[in-house]
């Protein structure tokens, strides 16, 4: 009943993979909250004063309040009209960092 496959009428095949094309308000709020948490981790490492290459790369990432809504809730795809798809279609999207997309898309 839960998960990607939801039971539908046996006449129409029995299994229907229904995933909404955009994120709901709750999901967007949770996504923003997760971005802020990652910002806090990067800020803690920066405040500690150590210098490392990973920190230089992490500081180049845009912060949550600097990101446009497009980048928070959609990602670039070369296959769809408009060249964008919902970020929730990226595997493990709640546990990976995906903040930037190709310039101009």
């Amino acid at each position, binding site marked *: 009943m839960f998960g990607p496959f939801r039971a539908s009428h046996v006449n129409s095949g029995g299994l229907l993979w229904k995933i909404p094309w955009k994120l709901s308000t709750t999901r967007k709020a949770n996504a923003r909250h*997760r971005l802020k*948490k*990652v910002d*806090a*981790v*990067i800020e*803690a*490492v920066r*405040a*500690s*004063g*150590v*210098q*490392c*290459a*990973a*920190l230089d*790369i*992490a500081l180049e990432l845009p912060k949550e309040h600097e990101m446009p809504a497009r980048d928070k809730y959609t990602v670039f795809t070369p296959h769809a009209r408009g060249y964008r798809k919902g970020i929730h279609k990226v595997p*493990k999207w*709640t*546990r*990976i*960092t995906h903040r930037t997309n190709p310039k101009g898309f």
Partner: protein
Amino acid sequence: PTTHYKITLHRSAISLGSRIKSTLESLGIHRRFQTVYHRHTPEAAGKILKVKELVQVENVTTDMVKTKQEMTKDRKAKRGYTVTGER
């Protein structure tokens, strides 16, 4: 002057690959909500940034660093009595 990172794992690394899992192992974290302390070093910073989506980090001073036994003792509930002697 803060000297240590207090690292707590909040999201698991299931199906994120062996690199991320190895990073958590090298930090000494074995389960969710486990807390671990590491000195401020570039190595520790790099490991934290590798798993930045999974952990929460706080900068603490040396006197706030707790060993595993001390953290376990803090979690334990106090007895409702004290033992004063035998019989």
